[in-house]
């Protein structure tokens, strides 16, 4: 049941991401930031789950697969999805508010997963989750600033 619910949510996230109106990212930007976000998220869970046992993923196949989908599809897509809004925000205050809202959403989703039994936080507090998401979002913004500029310059050079 949990697996089916999360499957629907993940598919909805993918559809919403590609159908969402507004400023769009280049296809290679989406791919790169999605990979980068996924890398950060999976390492976060891998270290906390395998090494420090601060997050315990449910042993049952359904919840484990649901968590796999979340960390490879939904969570990285949310991270990528916020980037155009961050870039479009004019002031530093607005940019900070966008990142804080997104980190809040991702923190809420992680603790919702705890509540429905996909994973269990053992000594890993909510503020630490929020801090991780803020850092992950900050690093993805930094990735866009460096890689994104290089990519756009190269792509424009290749246009004919």
């Amino acid at each position, binding site marked *: 049941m949990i697996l089916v619910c999360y499957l629907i949510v993940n598919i909805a996230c993918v559809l919403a991401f590609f159908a969402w109106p507004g400023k769009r990212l*280049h296809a290679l930007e989406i791919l790169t930031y999605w990979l980068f976000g996924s890398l950060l998220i999976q390492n976060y869970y891998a270290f906390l789950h395998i090494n420090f046992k601060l997050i315990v993923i449910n042993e049952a196949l359904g919840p484990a697969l649901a968590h796999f989908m979340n960390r490879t599809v939904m969570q990285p897509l949310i991270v990528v999805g916020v980037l155009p809004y961050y870039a479009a925000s004019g002031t530093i205050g607005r940019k900070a508010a966008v990142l804080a809202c997104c980190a809040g959403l991702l923190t809420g989703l992680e603790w919702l997963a705890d509540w429905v039994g996909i994973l269990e936080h053992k000594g890993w507090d909510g503020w630490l989750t929020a801090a991780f998401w803020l850092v992950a979002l900050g690093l993805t913004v930094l990735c866009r600033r460096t890689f994104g500029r290089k990519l756009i310059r190269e792509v424009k050079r290749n246009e004919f």
Partner: protein
Amino acid sequence: MNFKWDWNEWFMLFTSIGSVLAFLPIRRYFHPVLTCIIWLFSLVYVETIDFFLVGSPFQLYYFSDNETYEPSAVFVHMTQYSVSSMWFLYGYHKWQLRGMKLFLYILAWTGFAVLYEWICILNKVLTFTGWKLLYSVPTYPVSSLLLIAVYRLIYKHLRSPVR
């Protein structure tokens, strides 16, 4: 963590340095953006599969000689897989492989990958707790085809306009 530096860590270090050196001759062959994305893709792909099979509920193998996610494993992930991907794509692009030639090329790489995985098992880079070397055999052709698909996607979009 129960991290101890012994032979398998030295093996991982030497082979990873060797991989980085092996990348140097082809470092300028591809577009830097393509190199960057392929490198990232290979890293994420292998980490995703490893975390899926190493973590709950499967726990089919683990890296190195203890069950924790060791820094040396991260080093291997960051170097060896990505460099192998770049060399694979170098041959694919340079010789414009299609059809039977591509099939044989993937077969040769699968043979090399399985042989290298076996050497890794002997040197305790990988410890199987349910996985078998035989299970790895079909994963390499699938990964090769996926890598080619991603490479072609990147190549195509390198020329698509920025909106």
